[in-house]
Protein backbone atom coordinates (compact mmCIF):
# COMPACT_ATOMS: atom_id res chain seq x y z
CA UNK A 1 0.00 0.00 0.00
CA UNK A 2 2.78 2.45 0.91
CA UNK A 3 5.85 3.36 -1.15
CA UNK A 4 9.35 2.33 -0.03
CA UNK A 5 10.11 5.93 0.95
CA UNK A 6 7.00 6.12 3.12
CA UNK A 7 7.89 2.87 4.86
CA UNK A 8 11.47 4.05 5.39
CA UNK A 9 10.33 7.27 7.07
CA UNK A 10 7.70 5.36 9.05
CA UNK A 11 10.18 2.78 10.32
CA UNK A 12 13.02 5.25 10.92
CA UNK A 13 11.37 8.59 11.55
CA UNK A 14 13.71 11.60 11.58
CA UNK A 15 13.52 14.45 14.09
CA UNK A 16 11.11 12.94 16.60
CA UNK A 17 10.44 15.01 19.71
CA UNK A 18 9.62 18.46 20.94
CA UNK A 19 12.00 21.43 21.17
CA UNK A 20 11.88 22.97 24.62
CA UNK A 21 11.68 26.75 24.39
CA UNK A 22 10.80 26.60 20.69
CA UNK A 23 10.54 29.79 18.64
CA UNK A 24 7.45 28.57 16.83
CA UNK A 25 4.83 25.87 17.44
CA UNK A 26 2.32 24.46 14.96
CA UNK A 27 -0.35 21.98 15.95
CA UNK A 28 -2.98 20.63 13.56
CA UNK A 29 -5.60 17.90 13.29
CA UNK A 30 -7.65 15.98 15.76
CA UNK A 31 -8.29 12.31 16.38
CA UNK A 32 -11.81 12.29 14.90
CA UNK A 33 -10.51 12.10 11.37
CA UNK A 34 -7.44 10.27 12.51
CA UNK A 35 -4.34 12.38 12.92
CA UNK A 36 -2.68 15.03 15.07
CA UNK A 37 0.67 16.67 14.49
CA UNK A 38 2.79 19.06 16.48
CA UNK A 39 5.83 20.71 14.95
CA UNK A 40 8.28 22.85 16.95
CA UNK A 41 10.99 24.98 15.32
CA UNK A 42 14.08 26.83 16.42
CA UNK A 43 14.94 29.80 14.19
CA UNK A 44 18.28 31.62 13.81
CA UNK A 45 19.00 34.30 11.16
CA UNK A 46 15.61 33.62 9.54
CA UNK A 47 16.67 30.02 8.98
CA UNK A 48 15.13 26.86 10.51
CA UNK A 49 18.01 25.71 12.65
CA UNK A 50 16.20 22.83 14.31
CA UNK A 51 12.82 21.18 13.87
CA UNK A 52 11.05 18.33 15.65
CA UNK A 53 7.69 16.61 15.40
CA UNK A 54 5.24 14.63 17.47
CA UNK A 55 2.48 12.73 15.66
CA UNK A 56 -0.56 10.70 16.59
CA UNK A 57 -1.61 8.92 13.45
CA UNK A 58 -1.26 6.22 10.86
CA UNK A 59 1.88 5.15 9.04
CA UNK A 60 1.40 7.84 6.39
CA UNK A 61 0.97 10.56 9.01
CA UNK A 62 4.22 9.61 10.71
CA UNK A 63 6.12 9.41 7.39
CA UNK A 64 4.72 12.80 6.32
CA UNK A 65 5.84 14.41 9.58
CA UNK A 66 9.29 12.94 9.29
CA UNK A 67 9.64 14.05 5.64
CA UNK A 68 8.45 17.59 6.37
CA UNK A 69 11.06 18.04 9.08
CA UNK A 70 13.77 16.74 6.73
CA UNK A 71 12.67 19.09 3.99
CA UNK A 72 12.49 22.14 6.25
CA UNK A 73 15.64 21.66 8.29
CA UNK A 74 18.31 24.26 7.41
CA UNK A 75 16.03 26.12 4.98
CA UNK A 76 15.36 29.84 5.17
CA UNK A 77 11.83 30.73 6.26
CA UNK A 78 11.00 31.87 2.73
CA UNK A 79 12.20 28.57 1.32
CA UNK A 80 10.31 26.60 3.96
CA UNK A 81 7.11 28.47 3.11
CA UNK A 82 7.21 26.81 -0.32
CA UNK A 83 6.81 23.35 1.24
CA UNK A 84 3.27 22.16 0.48
CA UNK A 85 1.15 19.03 0.82
CA UNK A 86 1.90 18.29 -2.81
CA UNK A 87 5.66 18.62 -2.51
CA UNK A 88 5.68 16.42 0.61
CA UNK A 89 3.61 13.72 -1.09
CA UNK A 90 5.93 13.91 -4.11
CA UNK A 91 9.04 13.58 -1.94
CA UNK A 92 7.51 10.46 -0.38
CA UNK A 93 7.00 8.90 -3.85
CA UNK A 94 3.28 9.46 -3.46
CA UNK A 95 0.69 8.59 -0.85
CA UNK A 96 -2.39 6.36 -1.24
CA UNK A 97 -5.35 8.44 -2.45
CA UNK A 98 -7.34 8.10 0.77
CA UNK A 99 -4.34 9.35 2.77
CA UNK A 100 -3.60 12.38 0.65
CA UNK A 101 -5.81 14.69 2.62
CA UNK A 102 -6.26 13.25 6.09
CA UNK A 103 -2.73 12.19 6.91
CA UNK A 104 -0.98 14.86 4.93
CA UNK A 105 -1.05 17.56 7.57
CA UNK A 106 2.69 18.00 7.98
CA UNK A 107 2.98 21.02 5.69
CA UNK A 108 0.07 22.70 7.49
CA UNK A 109 1.76 22.15 10.86
CA UNK A 110 5.03 23.55 9.49
CA UNK A 111 3.36 26.64 8.04
CA UNK A 112 1.55 27.19 11.31
CA UNK A 113 4.83 26.97 13.24
CA UNK A 114 6.46 29.53 10.91
CA UNK A 115 3.45 31.84 11.29
CA UNK A 116 3.60 31.43 15.04
CA UNK A 117 7.27 32.43 14.98
CA UNK A 118 6.53 35.51 12.85
CA UNK A 119 3.59 36.51 15.03
CA UNK A 120 5.66 36.27 18.18
CA UNK A 121 8.41 38.32 16.58
CA UNK A 122 6.03 41.08 15.54
CA UNK A 123 4.31 40.99 18.92
CA UNK A 124 0.96 39.74 17.59
CA UNK A 125 -1.32 37.73 19.81
CA UNK A 126 -1.07 34.03 19.03
CA UNK A 127 -3.82 32.85 16.75
CA UNK A 128 -5.44 29.83 18.33
CA UNK A 129 -6.61 27.08 16.06
CA UNK A 130 -9.73 25.60 17.51
CA UNK A 131 -9.80 21.87 16.95
CA UNK A 132 -13.00 21.10 18.79
CA UNK A 133 -16.22 19.83 17.30
CA UNK A 134 -16.93 17.70 14.30
CA UNK A 135 -14.09 18.42 11.99
CA UNK A 136 -13.79 18.27 8.25
CA UNK A 137 -10.82 19.54 6.35
CA UNK A 138 -12.26 20.18 2.95
CA UNK A 139 -15.64 20.25 1.26
CA UNK A 140 -15.10 17.29 -1.02
CA UNK A 141 -13.76 14.99 1.68
CA UNK A 142 -16.36 15.38 4.37
CA UNK A 143 -16.54 13.08 7.37
CA UNK A 144 -18.80 10.08 7.39
CA UNK A 145 -21.48 8.82 9.74
CA UNK A 146 -19.86 6.25 12.04
CA UNK A 147 -22.98 4.06 11.82
CA UNK A 148 -23.90 3.88 8.17
CA UNK A 149 -20.92 5.46 6.39
CA UNK A 150 -23.07 8.11 4.70
CA UNK A 151 -21.44 11.44 4.10
CA UNK A 152 -22.02 14.11 6.72
CA UNK A 153 -21.29 17.78 6.37
CA UNK A 154 -19.59 20.12 8.78
CA UNK A 155 -21.77 20.95 11.73
CA UNK A 156 -24.37 18.23 11.20
CA UNK A 157 -25.30 16.49 14.43
CA UNK A 158 -27.73 13.94 12.99
CA UNK A 159 -27.09 11.57 10.11
CA UNK A 160 -29.63 12.24 7.39
CA UNK A 161 -29.44 8.66 6.14
CA UNK A 162 -29.80 6.55 9.29
CA UNK A 163 -31.22 9.16 11.64
CA UNK A 164 -28.70 8.56 14.43
CA UNK A 165 -27.42 11.37 16.58
CA UNK A 166 -23.66 11.81 16.45
CA UNK A 167 -22.13 12.71 19.76
CA UNK A 168 -18.62 14.09 19.63
CA UNK A 169 -16.23 13.12 22.37
CA UNK A 170 -12.66 14.27 22.57
CA UNK A 171 -10.15 13.49 25.27
CA UNK A 172 -7.61 16.20 24.71
Amino acid at each position, binding site marked *: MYSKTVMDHFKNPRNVGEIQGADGVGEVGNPIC*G*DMMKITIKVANERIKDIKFLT*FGCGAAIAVSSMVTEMAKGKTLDEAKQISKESVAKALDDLPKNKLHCSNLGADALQMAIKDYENRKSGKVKEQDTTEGYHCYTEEESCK*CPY*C*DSEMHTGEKTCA*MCGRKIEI*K*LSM
Partner: protein
Amino acid sequence: MNTINLDYISSNPLLPEVKNAMIEAIKKDYGNPSSAHRLGEEAAEEIEKAREKVAKLITASPDEIIFTSCGTESNNHAIKGVAFAKKDKGKHIVTSDTEHNSVLKPIRTLRTLGYDTTSVSVDQFGRVKPDDVLKAIRDDTVLITIMHANNEIGTIQPIKEIAQIAREKKITFHCDAVTSVGVVPIDVHDLGIDLLSFAANQFNGPSGVGGLYVRKGTSLWPLLDGGGQENKRRGGTENLIGIIGMGVASEITLKEMESRINHLKRIKERLTNGLRENIDDIIFNGYPEYSLPNLISLSIKYIEGESIVLMLDEENIAVATKSACASGSLRASHVLIAIGRDYADAQGTLVITYGRDTTENDIGRFLEVLKKTVDTLRKMSPLYQKK
Protein backbone atom coordinates in the same frame (compact mmCIF):
# COMPACT_ATOMS: atom_id res chain seq x y z
CA MET B 1 10.24 -16.71 10.47
CA ASN B 2 6.63 -17.90 10.38
CA THR B 3 3.93 -15.27 10.55
CA ILE B 4 1.96 -15.29 13.77
CA ASN B 5 -1.69 -14.93 12.84
CA LEU B 6 -3.66 -13.02 15.46
CA ASP B 7 -6.28 -11.94 12.95
CA TYR B 8 -8.33 -15.15 12.81
CA ILE B 9 -11.57 -13.22 12.53
CA SER B 10 -10.63 -11.94 9.07
CA SER B 11 -10.27 -15.51 7.93
CA ASN B 12 -9.31 -18.77 9.58
CA PRO B 13 -6.69 -21.04 8.06
CA LEU B 14 -8.28 -24.05 6.32
CA LEU B 15 -8.12 -27.34 8.19
CA PRO B 16 -6.00 -29.91 6.32
CA GLU B 17 -9.05 -32.20 6.08
CA VAL B 18 -11.02 -29.34 4.50
CA LYS B 19 -8.25 -28.70 1.96
CA ASN B 20 -8.12 -32.40 1.04
CA ALA B 21 -11.87 -32.70 0.62
CA MET B 22 -11.94 -29.63 -1.61
CA ILE B 23 -8.99 -30.78 -3.73
CA GLU B 24 -10.58 -34.20 -4.20
CA ALA B 25 -13.84 -32.53 -5.18
CA ILE B 26 -12.09 -30.37 -7.77
CA LYS B 27 -10.44 -33.47 -9.27
CA LYS B 28 -13.79 -35.22 -9.71
CA ASP B 29 -15.26 -32.77 -12.25
CA TYR B 30 -18.78 -32.83 -10.86
CA GLY B 31 -21.73 -31.64 -12.91
CA ASN B 32 -24.31 -29.02 -12.07
CA PRO B 33 -26.30 -30.15 -9.02
CA SER B 34 -29.56 -29.11 -10.74
CA SER B 35 -29.03 -31.42 -13.72
CA ALA B 36 -31.03 -34.64 -14.02
CA HIS B 37 -28.10 -36.75 -15.25
CA ARG B 38 -25.76 -38.74 -13.07
CA LEU B 39 -22.94 -36.16 -13.05
CA GLY B 40 -25.41 -33.65 -11.65
CA GLU B 41 -26.98 -36.04 -9.21
CA GLU B 42 -23.63 -36.89 -7.69
CA ALA B 43 -23.04 -33.20 -7.10
CA ALA B 44 -26.49 -32.78 -5.57
CA GLU B 45 -25.78 -35.69 -3.22
CA GLU B 46 -22.54 -34.03 -2.07
CA ILE B 47 -24.45 -30.84 -1.30
CA GLU B 48 -27.06 -32.69 0.74
CA LYS B 49 -24.33 -34.52 2.67
CA ALA B 50 -22.73 -31.18 3.49
CA ARG B 51 -26.10 -29.68 4.41
CA GLU B 52 -26.61 -32.39 7.03
CA LYS B 53 -23.21 -31.70 8.61
CA VAL B 54 -23.75 -27.94 8.62
CA ALA B 55 -27.25 -28.32 10.11
CA LYS B 56 -25.85 -30.45 12.94
CA LEU B 57 -23.43 -27.71 13.94
CA ILE B 58 -26.34 -25.44 14.91
CA THR B 59 -28.83 -28.22 15.81
CA ALA B 60 -31.12 -27.47 12.86
CA SER B 61 -32.73 -29.79 10.30
CA PRO B 62 -31.01 -29.91 6.92
CA ASP B 63 -34.01 -28.46 5.08
CA GLU B 64 -33.76 -25.33 7.22
CA ILE B 65 -30.31 -24.47 5.81
CA ILE B 66 -29.76 -22.27 2.74
CA PHE B 67 -26.21 -22.15 1.39
CA THR B 68 -25.13 -18.62 0.51
CA SER B 69 -21.92 -16.99 -0.71
CA CYS B 70 -20.91 -15.46 2.64
CA GLY B 71 -22.13 -14.03 5.95
CA THR B 72 -22.92 -10.74 4.27
CA GLU B 73 -25.25 -12.41 1.81
CA SER B 74 -26.94 -14.31 4.64
CA ASN B 75 -27.59 -11.07 6.52
CA ASN B 76 -28.84 -9.30 3.40
CA HIS B 77 -31.06 -12.24 2.54
CA ALA B 78 -32.57 -12.45 6.02
CA ILE B 79 -33.20 -8.73 6.47
CA LYS B 80 -34.38 -7.79 2.99
CA GLY B 81 -36.10 -11.16 2.55
CA VAL B 82 -38.26 -10.75 5.67
CA ALA B 83 -38.90 -7.05 4.99
CA PHE B 84 -40.07 -7.79 1.42
CA ALA B 85 -42.15 -10.82 2.43
CA LYS B 86 -43.93 -8.87 5.15
CA LYS B 87 -44.21 -5.46 3.54
CA ASP B 88 -48.01 -5.52 3.70
CA LYS B 89 -47.98 -6.21 7.44
CA GLY B 90 -45.64 -3.38 8.38
CA LYS B 91 -42.42 -1.60 7.57
CA HIS B 92 -40.65 -1.19 10.90
CA ILE B 93 -37.43 -2.96 11.89
CA VAL B 94 -35.70 -3.05 15.29
CA THR B 95 -31.91 -3.40 15.42
CA SER B 96 -28.99 -2.41 17.67
CA ASP B 97 -26.20 0.17 17.57
CA THR B 98 -23.32 -2.30 17.27
CA GLU B 99 -24.40 -4.42 14.29
CA HIS B 100 -22.01 -5.35 11.49
CA ASN B 101 -22.04 -3.31 8.27
CA SER B 102 -23.75 -6.20 6.50
CA VAL B 103 -26.74 -5.55 8.77
CA LEU B 104 -26.51 -1.74 8.98
CA LYS B 105 -26.33 -1.27 5.24
CA PRO B 106 -29.24 -3.50 4.14
CA ILE B 107 -31.26 -1.56 6.72
CA ARG B 108 -30.04 1.68 5.20
CA THR B 109 -31.21 0.44 1.81
CA LEU B 110 -34.61 -0.43 3.25
CA ARG B 111 -34.88 3.08 4.71
CA THR B 112 -34.59 4.49 1.22
CA LEU B 113 -37.50 2.21 0.23
CA GLY B 114 -39.77 3.65 2.91
CA TYR B 115 -39.01 1.33 5.82
CA ASP B 116 -38.47 2.79 9.29
CA THR B 117 -35.99 1.52 11.87
CA THR B 118 -35.29 1.84 15.56
CA SER B 119 -31.79 1.14 16.79
CA VAL B 120 -31.45 0.08 20.41
CA SER B 121 -28.41 1.40 22.27
CA VAL B 122 -25.95 -0.77 24.20
CA ASP B 123 -24.38 -0.44 27.64
CA GLN B 124 -20.70 0.35 28.23
CA PHE B 125 -19.84 -3.30 27.57
CA GLY B 126 -21.78 -3.41 24.33
CA ARG B 127 -24.78 -5.35 25.62
CA VAL B 128 -28.38 -4.73 24.59
CA LYS B 129 -31.07 -4.69 27.30
CA PRO B 130 -33.96 -6.96 26.23
CA ASP B 131 -36.34 -4.47 27.83
CA ASP B 132 -35.15 -1.75 25.42
CA VAL B 133 -35.99 -4.07 22.52
CA LEU B 134 -39.48 -4.53 23.94
CA LYS B 135 -39.92 -0.75 24.19
CA ALA B 136 -38.75 -0.25 20.60
CA ILE B 137 -41.40 -2.60 19.20
CA ARG B 138 -44.36 -0.97 17.43
CA ASP B 139 -47.57 -2.30 15.91
CA ASP B 140 -45.94 -2.27 12.49
CA THR B 141 -42.66 -3.97 13.54
CA VAL B 142 -42.01 -6.96 11.28
CA LEU B 143 -38.41 -7.83 12.07
CA ILE B 144 -35.94 -7.70 14.93
CA THR B 145 -32.31 -8.22 13.95
CA ILE B 146 -29.65 -8.40 16.65
CA MET B 147 -26.25 -10.05 16.42
CA HIS B 148 -25.19 -13.00 18.59
CA ALA B 149 -21.68 -11.77 19.34
CA ASN B 150 -19.97 -8.61 18.24
CA ASN B 151 -17.12 -8.96 15.76
CA GLU B 152 -15.10 -6.07 17.20
CA ILE B 153 -15.49 -6.44 20.96
CA GLY B 154 -16.76 -10.01 21.36
CA THR B 155 -19.75 -9.17 23.56
CA ILE B 156 -22.45 -11.85 23.47
CA GLN B 157 -26.03 -10.54 23.42
CA PRO B 158 -28.93 -11.93 25.47
CA ILE B 159 -30.40 -13.58 22.36
CA LYS B 160 -32.61 -16.05 24.18
CA GLU B 161 -34.40 -13.29 26.09
CA ILE B 162 -34.83 -11.14 22.98
CA ALA B 163 -36.11 -14.15 21.00
CA GLN B 164 -38.66 -14.76 23.73
CA ILE B 165 -39.95 -11.19 23.34
CA ALA B 166 -40.06 -11.54 19.55
CA ARG B 167 -42.02 -14.75 19.83
CA GLU B 168 -44.55 -13.27 22.25
CA LYS B 169 -45.04 -10.29 19.92
CA LYS B 170 -45.16 -12.58 16.85
CA ILE B 171 -42.28 -10.72 15.20
CA THR B 172 -39.67 -12.49 13.08
CA PHE B 173 -36.25 -12.54 14.75
CA HIS B 174 -33.00 -12.70 12.81
CA CYS B 175 -29.65 -13.20 14.50
CA ASP B 176 -26.32 -12.47 12.83
CA ALA B 177 -24.16 -15.20 14.35
CA VAL B 178 -21.27 -15.05 11.88
CA THR B 179 -18.66 -14.52 14.59
CA SER B 180 -20.18 -17.13 16.93
CA VAL B 181 -21.05 -20.19 14.87
CA GLY B 182 -18.15 -22.62 15.02
CA VAL B 183 -16.60 -20.80 17.98
CA VAL B 184 -19.20 -21.35 20.70
CA PRO B 185 -22.04 -23.90 20.78
CA ILE B 186 -25.16 -22.61 18.99
CA ASP B 187 -28.50 -24.37 19.24
CA VAL B 188 -31.15 -22.62 17.16
CA HIS B 189 -34.00 -24.27 19.07
CA ASP B 190 -32.61 -23.34 22.45
CA LEU B 191 -32.07 -19.74 21.27
CA GLY B 192 -35.58 -19.62 19.81
CA ILE B 193 -34.67 -17.56 16.77
CA ASP B 194 -36.23 -17.63 13.27
CA LEU B 195 -33.20 -16.86 11.12
CA LEU B 196 -29.48 -17.18 11.78
CA SER B 197 -26.53 -16.13 9.59
CA PHE B 198 -23.13 -17.81 9.62
CA ALA B 199 -20.03 -18.26 7.46
CA ALA B 200 -17.55 -21.10 6.89
CA ASN B 201 -14.39 -18.98 7.09
CA GLN B 202 -15.05 -18.35 10.78
CA PHE B 203 -14.51 -22.03 11.61
CA ASN B 204 -11.56 -23.09 9.46
CA GLY B 205 -13.67 -23.52 6.34
CA PRO B 206 -13.30 -21.75 3.00
CA SER B 207 -14.16 -18.12 2.25
CA GLY B 208 -16.96 -17.56 -0.21
CA VAL B 209 -19.51 -19.85 1.40
CA GLY B 210 -21.99 -19.12 4.15
CA GLY B 211 -25.27 -20.33 5.50
CA LEU B 212 -28.64 -19.02 6.51
CA TYR B 213 -30.83 -20.96 8.90
CA VAL B 214 -34.52 -20.38 8.24
CA ARG B 215 -36.92 -21.94 10.73
CA LYS B 216 -39.75 -23.86 9.06
CA GLY B 217 -42.73 -21.61 8.43
CA THR B 218 -40.77 -18.33 8.27
CA SER B 219 -41.84 -16.01 5.43
CA LEU B 220 -38.80 -15.08 3.36
CA TRP B 221 -38.53 -13.50 -0.07
CA PRO B 222 -35.49 -14.61 -2.10
CA LEU B 223 -32.56 -12.22 -2.35
CA LEU B 224 -31.21 -13.76 -5.53
CA ASP B 225 -34.10 -14.33 -7.91
CA GLY B 226 -33.36 -17.02 -10.42
CA GLY B 227 -33.58 -20.78 -10.66
CA GLY B 228 -35.08 -23.19 -8.18
CA GLN B 229 -31.89 -23.92 -6.26
CA GLU B 230 -31.86 -24.23 -2.47
CA ASN B 231 -35.50 -25.30 -2.46
CA LYS B 232 -36.47 -22.20 -4.48
CA ARG B 233 -35.05 -19.89 -1.83
CA ARG B 234 -31.81 -18.85 -3.51
CA GLY B 235 -31.29 -18.84 -7.27
CA GLY B 236 -27.82 -19.46 -8.69
CA THR B 237 -25.61 -22.48 -9.24
CA GLU B 238 -24.22 -23.67 -5.92
CA ASN B 239 -20.58 -23.21 -4.92
CA LEU B 240 -20.13 -26.98 -4.76
CA ILE B 241 -16.44 -27.06 -3.80
CA GLY B 242 -16.95 -24.45 -1.09
CA ILE B 243 -20.03 -26.20 0.26
CA ILE B 244 -18.14 -29.50 0.49
CA GLY B 245 -15.39 -27.68 2.41
CA MET B 246 -17.94 -26.09 4.71
CA GLY B 247 -19.47 -29.48 5.45
CA VAL B 248 -16.14 -30.99 6.50
CA ALA B 249 -15.25 -27.91 8.55
CA SER B 250 -18.62 -28.12 10.34
CA GLU B 251 -18.17 -31.78 11.18
CA ILE B 252 -14.68 -31.34 12.64
CA THR B 253 -15.57 -28.14 14.44
CA LEU B 254 -18.49 -29.78 16.20
CA LYS B 255 -16.29 -32.71 17.24
CA GLU B 256 -13.52 -30.44 18.55
CA MET B 257 -15.74 -27.72 20.03
CA GLU B 258 -15.16 -28.46 23.70
CA SER B 259 -11.38 -28.87 23.49
CA ARG B 260 -11.11 -25.78 21.27
CA ILE B 261 -13.02 -23.64 23.76
CA ASN B 262 -10.78 -24.79 26.60
CA HIS B 263 -7.72 -23.94 24.52
CA LEU B 264 -9.10 -20.52 23.54
CA LYS B 265 -9.92 -19.70 27.15
CA ARG B 266 -6.36 -20.52 28.22
CA ILE B 267 -4.96 -18.31 25.45
CA LYS B 268 -7.32 -15.49 26.39
CA GLU B 269 -6.27 -15.62 30.04
CA ARG B 270 -2.58 -15.65 29.15
CA LEU B 271 -3.05 -12.73 26.74
CA THR B 272 -5.16 -10.67 29.13
CA ASN B 273 -2.72 -11.10 32.00
CA GLY B 274 0.27 -10.48 29.77
CA LEU B 275 -1.20 -7.28 28.35
CA ARG B 276 -2.09 -5.99 31.84
CA GLU B 277 1.43 -6.67 33.11
CA ASN B 278 3.30 -5.32 30.08
CA ILE B 279 1.47 -2.21 28.90
CA ASP B 280 -0.01 0.62 30.94
CA ASP B 281 -2.93 2.88 29.95
CA ILE B 282 -4.93 0.25 28.13
CA ILE B 283 -8.66 -0.43 28.07
CA PHE B 284 -10.21 -3.85 27.45
CA ASN B 285 -13.41 -3.42 25.45
CA GLY B 286 -16.41 -5.69 25.77
CA TYR B 287 -18.19 -7.69 28.39
CA PRO B 288 -15.97 -9.49 30.89
CA GLU B 289 -18.44 -12.35 31.30
CA TYR B 290 -20.61 -12.65 28.18
CA SER B 291 -17.82 -12.69 25.67
CA LEU B 292 -16.34 -14.75 22.84
CA PRO B 293 -13.34 -16.85 23.96
CA ASN B 294 -11.37 -16.16 20.75
CA LEU B 295 -11.25 -12.35 20.78
CA ILE B 296 -9.71 -9.52 22.75
CA SER B 297 -10.41 -5.89 21.93
CA LEU B 298 -7.82 -3.57 23.34
CA SER B 299 -7.68 0.23 23.20
CA ILE B 300 -4.11 1.42 23.66
CA LYS B 301 -4.18 5.04 24.69
CA TYR B 302 -2.25 7.86 22.95
CA ILE B 303 -1.36 5.92 19.77
CA GLU B 304 -3.05 5.01 16.52
CA GLY B 305 -4.00 1.52 15.36
CA GLU B 306 -2.74 1.42 11.78
CA SER B 307 0.77 2.36 12.81
CA ILE B 308 0.71 -0.43 15.42
CA VAL B 309 -0.45 -2.92 12.78
CA LEU B 310 2.27 -1.84 10.33
CA MET B 311 5.02 -2.14 12.93
CA LEU B 312 3.80 -5.58 14.04
CA ASP B 313 3.60 -6.65 10.40
CA GLU B 314 7.30 -5.80 10.03
CA GLU B 315 7.87 -8.37 12.79
CA ASN B 316 5.67 -10.97 11.05
CA ILE B 317 2.71 -10.60 13.36
CA ALA B 318 -0.73 -10.13 11.78
CA VAL B 319 -3.32 -8.31 13.85
CA ALA B 320 -6.34 -6.13 13.00
CA THR B 321 -7.25 -2.62 14.06
CA LYS B 322 -10.49 -0.72 14.22
CA SER B 323 -8.75 2.53 13.46
CA ALA B 324 -10.42 4.79 10.91
CA CYS B 325 -7.06 5.35 9.29
CA ALA B 326 -6.81 1.72 8.25
CA SER B 327 -10.31 1.47 6.84
CA GLY B 328 -9.89 4.26 4.34
CA SER B 329 -13.29 5.61 5.21
CA LEU B 330 -12.04 8.20 7.70
CA ARG B 331 -14.42 7.11 10.41
CA ALA B 332 -13.93 5.66 13.85
CA SER B 333 -15.55 2.31 14.60
CA HIS B 334 -19.25 2.78 15.35
CA VAL B 335 -19.07 -0.07 17.87
CA LEU B 336 -16.39 1.64 19.95
CA ILE B 337 -18.23 4.95 19.79
CA ALA B 338 -21.45 3.17 20.83
CA ILE B 339 -19.83 1.79 23.99
CA GLY B 340 -18.56 5.25 24.90
CA ARG B 341 -14.92 5.21 23.81
CA ASP B 342 -13.76 8.63 22.69
CA TYR B 343 -12.36 9.12 19.21
CA ALA B 344 -8.70 9.05 20.22
CA ASP B 345 -9.08 5.77 22.13
CA ALA B 346 -11.14 4.26 19.32
CA GLN B 347 -8.27 5.08 16.93
CA GLY B 348 -5.84 3.06 19.02
CA THR B 349 -7.82 -0.15 19.12
CA LEU B 350 -6.57 -3.61 18.23
CA VAL B 351 -8.80 -6.61 17.65
CA ILE B 352 -6.75 -9.64 18.60
CA THR B 353 -8.29 -12.93 17.45
CA TYR B 354 -6.81 -16.40 17.60
CA GLY B 355 -7.78 -20.02 17.06
CA ARG B 356 -7.12 -23.70 17.53
CA ASP B 357 -3.55 -23.49 16.23
CA THR B 358 -2.42 -20.45 18.25
CA THR B 359 0.28 -21.41 20.75
CA GLU B 360 1.47 -19.98 24.07
CA ASN B 361 4.77 -19.20 22.32
CA ASP B 362 2.94 -17.08 19.75
CA ILE B 363 1.38 -15.08 22.56
CA GLY B 364 4.71 -14.63 24.32
CA ARG B 365 6.37 -13.23 21.22
CA PHE B 366 3.38 -11.01 20.44
CA LEU B 367 3.46 -9.49 23.93
CA GLU B 368 7.17 -8.79 23.66
CA VAL B 369 6.94 -7.12 20.24
CA LEU B 370 3.78 -5.20 21.13
CA LYS B 371 5.40 -3.65 24.19
CA LYS B 372 8.33 -2.45 22.10
CA THR B 373 5.99 -1.06 19.43
CA VAL B 374 3.81 0.79 21.93
CA ASP B 375 6.87 2.39 23.55
CA THR B 376 8.19 3.56 20.17
CA LEU B 377 4.89 5.06 19.05
CA ARG B 378 4.14 6.71 22.37
CA LYS B 379 7.48 8.48 22.26
CA MET B 380 6.23 10.04 19.03
CA SER B 381 2.73 10.91 20.24
CA PRO B 382 1.69 14.46 21.15
CA LEU B 383 -1.17 12.99 23.20
CA TYR B 384 1.23 10.94 25.32
CA GLN B 385 3.50 13.94 25.88
CA LYS B 386 0.51 15.98 27.11
CA LYS B 387 -0.46 13.27 29.58
